[in-house]
């Protein structure tokens, strides 16, 4: 074993000796008359100059460096570089020769090798190899890399800006001005918006007027809030429930998924607007023999009549408030279902990201499905609940069939179209947006204290 290792090393050594002898022949020998044989160098310098072993690696750059070092009386840089170039050039020519040497050189090297020195070299070898690996990086690449890294961070942040550039331009030159002019309208006398003479600023008069001239506004906001307090949990819970069911394996899952996400694609924009003003659904329900409950529910009222439930619940002697809550939810069922599409998608993605291994181990430990839901699914999905709650608030507040939006921007009798009071509509909208922001921050803070974040690495 040892012998083979020796010969292996000897091969490497002899290889380096070849390059060294060649160095002797070429310019280096001009500087330094001594014949450069590796054995002698091992003798003399192995202890202080472990880099010598570098020659074993056929790293050209390193060889040049070593050649440089062996000369000891280093000539100026230019000369050294010239030498290096010449070295390289000659070596390329000499390469086949090298291979020829390779075959018989080992014995030669071993003969000429001082055995003690060889053993020393071998002992030091592990250390040396480390140094060899570290040194070239430090000497050659590190300064280069350092410079690259510096420019890299700059480059990265620059290209980051480049990527978001469209949006930044949009904010600066389009969205920003639009927002500013929209806010400006709220401080301007409404009549002056349409006149050519320019705007007539009235300060906060419009804001004061909201509560004087439009008393219904504050009531509407309160009503809208009440609706939302009901609808937000309903939508989030419903979509979570449905996502869990749609995540289970069953026949016809694809069909049900397709149906459940249908409103996301279809119930928007013009279709939504048409449904809001449509009297078709009501008449359909009426002709089906349902009771005209005047709740304006869009469809679905045919399944469960709100009045029936109301009677049922009041017979059980539940409080009238609770009855109202339940009937409201039943009336809104189409709204709730059609608004939970995106939330369902988000929950589905969250459920998919929970590792099945956790469920498996739960099953092994004997946890029931009920326990698994409360201990695993709910905590793991809680970040999604936050996302969905915020999304639902935004979606409900900004939807066209929201009470406030109807009153301000809806069709007949609205502030915007009927009164054409753009200033007042702006005031209402911005007050509304501030309230929405406050609600979102409040909900986000509330939920954030409950949300469980899985530690990811």
């Amino acid at each position, binding site marked *: 074993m040892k012998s083979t290792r020796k010969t292996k090393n000897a091969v490497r050594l002899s290889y380096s000796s070849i390059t060294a002898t060649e160095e002797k022949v070429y310019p280096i020998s001009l500087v330094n008359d001594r014949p450069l044989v590796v054995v002698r160098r091992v003798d003399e310098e192995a202890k202080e100059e472990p880099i010598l072993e570098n020659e074993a690696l056929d790293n050209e750059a390193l060889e040049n460096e070593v050649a440089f070092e062996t000369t000891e009386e280093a000539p100026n840089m230019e000369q050294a570089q010239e030498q290096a170039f010449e070295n390289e050039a000659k070596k390329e020519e000499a390469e086949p020769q090298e291979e020829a040497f390779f075959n018989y050189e080992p014995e030669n090297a071993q003969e000429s090798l001082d055995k003690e020195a060889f053993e020393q070299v071998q002992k030091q070898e592990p250390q040396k190899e480390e140094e060899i690996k570290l040194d070239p990086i430090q000497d050659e690449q590190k300064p280069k890399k350092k410079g690259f890294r510096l420019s890299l961070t700059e480059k*990265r*942040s*620059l*290209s*980051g*800006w*480049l*990527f*978001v550039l*469209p*949006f930044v331009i*949009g*904010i600066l*030159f*389009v969205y920003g001005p639009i*927002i500013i002019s929209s806010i400006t*309208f709220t401080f301007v006398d409404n009549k002056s918006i349409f006149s050519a003479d320019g705007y007539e600023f009235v300060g906060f008069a419009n804001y004061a007027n909201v509560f004087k001239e439009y008393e219904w506004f504050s009531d509407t906001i309160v009503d809208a809030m009440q609706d939302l307090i009901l609808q937000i949990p309903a939508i989030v819970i419903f979509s979570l429930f*449905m996502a869990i069911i749609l995540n*289970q394996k*069953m026949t016809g899952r694809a069909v*049900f*998924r*397709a149906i459940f*996400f*249908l409103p*996301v*694609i*279809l119930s928007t*924009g*013009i279709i*939504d607007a*048409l449904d809001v*003003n449509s*009297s*078709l659904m009501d008449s*359909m329900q009426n002709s089906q023999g349902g009771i005209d409950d005047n709740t304006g529910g*869009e*469809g*679905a009222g045919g*399944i469960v009549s709100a009045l029936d439930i109301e009677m049922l619940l009041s017979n059980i002697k539940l409080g009238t408030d609770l009855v109202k809550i339940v009937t409201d939810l039943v009336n809104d069922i*189409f709204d709730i*279902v059609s608004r939970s599409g*995106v939330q369902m998608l988000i929950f*589905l993605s969250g459920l998919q*990201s929970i590792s099945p291994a956790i469920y498996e181990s739960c099953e092994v430990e004997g946890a029931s499905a009920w326990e698994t839901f409360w201990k695993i699914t709910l905590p793991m999905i809680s*970040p*999604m609940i*936050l*996302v969905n709650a915020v999304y639902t608030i935004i979606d409900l*507040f*900004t939807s*066209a069939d929201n009470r406030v*939006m109807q009153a301000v*921007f809806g069709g007949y009798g609205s502030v915007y179209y009927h009164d054409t009071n753009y200033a007042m*509509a702006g005031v209402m*909208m*911005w007050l509304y*947006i501030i309230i*929405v922001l406050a609600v*979102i921050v409040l909900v986000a803070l509330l939920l954030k204290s409950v949300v469980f974040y899985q530690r990811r690495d």
Partner: protein
Amino acid sequence: METTKVKKETKNKIRVDFERAPLSVRLKQKFLSMDFLVNVVFKIFRFILLVGVSYVILYPYIAKIFASFMSISDFKDVTVILISKSPTLEQYKYIITDNGYFLALLNTFLLSLSVALIQTVVCALVAYGLAKFKFKGNNIIFFLVIFTMMVPQEALMYAMDTFFATFSKHNVIGMLLSSMGAIGEYGFENTMAPLYILSFLGLGFKNGLFIFMLRQFFKGVPDELEESAYVDGSSTMRTFFTIIIPLAIPMLVTVFIFSFAWTWTDDFYSTIFFDSTYEGAMKYMSDIAVVPESLEKYTNSGTSYANVYSSAITGTASILIILPLLIAYIFVQNKIVQGIERSGIVG
């Protein structure tokens, strides 16, 4: 317990000898256990629930479809429920001819396709910048993205209208464009160009949501992928287009579908940038949802059934509007779920 010896050979030619309990015992064990019962009850309950909710979702569409075949006499007749007594196609016929359905279809298709493409690409770029690069102001820009989601578009209706109507007067971009002769002296009038501008700047309808979704997706892509690309000497843009984009295809498809569908049914931008009464104005899908001239004689009477009839007509129009979308949806609905499932959106 009586048992019978059975010899069986499986598909893979493995012979098995075993003792088997009689059929009645086996059936009892299988079907009379509590587990089975619970399972069956649960499955039935789940199925009923799913069918019920599906019915709630589909009911408006079903009602519209049935009503679309009704004639005016069916609305006068109280006994008519869903199934028409004198079915007719005149609602479809007049919407297609009077309201110029096919022209609107073509226009809307071209508009939706281009807008959806632009929005997908721009949102992907912005989202990638926000997700993978740390620079000063990153968080501010992300907040602004969320802010654009929060402001209802109606709130900016008038401001947006005047902004684009006076685009060449008060805006750097507008001045640039008008000096190039691209737009008129004042700004845009009766053109969808503002929508394209908004799309190019990531400010279109619900683009904040798209950016948010894509950002979450890109955050889930391991950094090592890009780092190895950078080490191999790939530029940032090249890395984005050759490594990140192929990975993000399912998510991009989802965003594209949303963008396409929402532009298709859009009635906001086409009304504020567009005066559809203007002579020679481009017709879009939102413009065909009106009572056709040939049917106005029935709906103008002011009676309650006339109102229902006009609702039925707009319902028919909305069926015609969503029909192409619906056909496309059947083919791509799998992709939507896939895209979101793989995104791993995590707050």
